């Protein structure tokens, strides 16, 4: 191969490599694949098996009042999400517990109610029970989802990137909203921890 042909082949190789690079950057969703959490969906009473933990919502309750010392009144209503978690591989600290309404509005859980869970330090293989409390407006009761992860949401989900996230459908439909909103009975929560709550304290919508 003479020098001219060699130069032309090299130039063709470089141009082809640049073209391939452009194809990759144009057509591979690099950012989306790099930052999104690995979401596992489940329904009320079902277990979402993440890589590091199993997440189950055992019941939900709606009330204007959480009893305790002090008693906590909601600005709207308390949506209490009774949760069971099990770390499956190693002791795990879990920080991400958010409620997302149908319109995408995100609600942080509150620590105002006595025994409302804040986060969960899980011992491997030992079930942990806790109730997360969300002070929400009536509209948020229509089709809310409970999102659970190791990292907290932080800024734009930065704490949940490339990690397992459980998306639990709390199974509240439009027909249930009025009934739930009108409930007035106070709710008493069990302490968080490895001691299971009494069966009577669990409730479905």
């Amino acid at each position, binding site marked *: 191969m003479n020098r001219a042909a060699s130069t032309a082949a090299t130039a063709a190789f470089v141009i082809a490599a640049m073209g391939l690079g452009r194809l990759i950057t144009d057509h591979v969703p690099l950012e989306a694949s790099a930052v999104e959490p690995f979401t596992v969906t489940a329904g009320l009473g079902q277990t979402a098996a993440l890589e590091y933990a199993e997440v189950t919502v055992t019941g939900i309750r709606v009330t204007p009042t959480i009893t305790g010392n002090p008693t906590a009144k909601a600005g709207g209503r308390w949506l209490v999400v009774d949760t069971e978690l099990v770390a499956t591989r190693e002791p795990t600290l879990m920080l991400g517990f958010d409620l997302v309404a149908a319109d995408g509005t995100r609600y942080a859980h509150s620590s105002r109610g006595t025994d409302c869970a804040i986060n969960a330090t899980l011992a491997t*293989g030992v079930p942990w029970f806790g109730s997360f409390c969300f002070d929400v407006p009536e509209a948020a009761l229509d089709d809310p989802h409970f999102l659970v992860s190791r990292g907290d949401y932080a800024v734009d989900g930065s704490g949940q990137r490339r990690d397992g996230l459980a998306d639990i459908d709390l199974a509240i439909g439009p027909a249930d909203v009025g009934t739930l909103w009108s409930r007035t009975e106070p709710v008493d929560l069990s302490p968080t921890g490895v*001691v299971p709550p009494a069966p009577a304290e669990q409730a479905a919508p």
Partner: protein
Amino acid sequence: MIGARPSRWWILAIPFAIALMLAAAGYRVGTFWFHNGQHRVLASADAGQWARASEDYTDVFGDTTRSYAVRLAGWGHKSSTFVNGRGEEFALPDGIVARTVNLEFEAEPDQALTSCTISLIDAQGRRFDNGGSTSQVANESSACVPEETPGPSVAVLDTDVRGATPDDTQPRPTRWATSPQVVVPRDAEIVEVRVSFEHPDYVRLMPER
């Protein structure tokens, strides 16, 4: 006429370039993985045998070392109740037990051994710790030192004295035994016991199987 052959020496540079690329891309592995868990075995011993370890660590005065020997003397009882680090005693859920690990230690009285974690590894690769200060089923107290004579802690204040025995206790003996408890599922088959003070280092003790 044969044309001049292009240079092929650049091919030799490819392995170095790949190694450099991987090093540049993996610089966070150390921070977010290696130094964030138990990843380096300092010493290892079979059941009943002594494992002797010396590990580097940093206190308020600078770099220093911690030297000790430990052996797995056996297993104690399995309990369906547990007293955690906050002094709360409660019944464990069905299928969960607290296993007692009998350990023996040797170390000079000036070694800082008061804060350690005992981990059990089962056949499925699950890790169970006695630690995790906010966990309800954790109790790290006196896992690696005698309760009455714990000896020095890691110096964290300028006013501390490295290696000094607390004023209100006697010096720690050079040989002693502990019996920490670790909460595990009843059917967990334990294949390894770990003693660790700081990530990523740990001592591996192999139980009889």
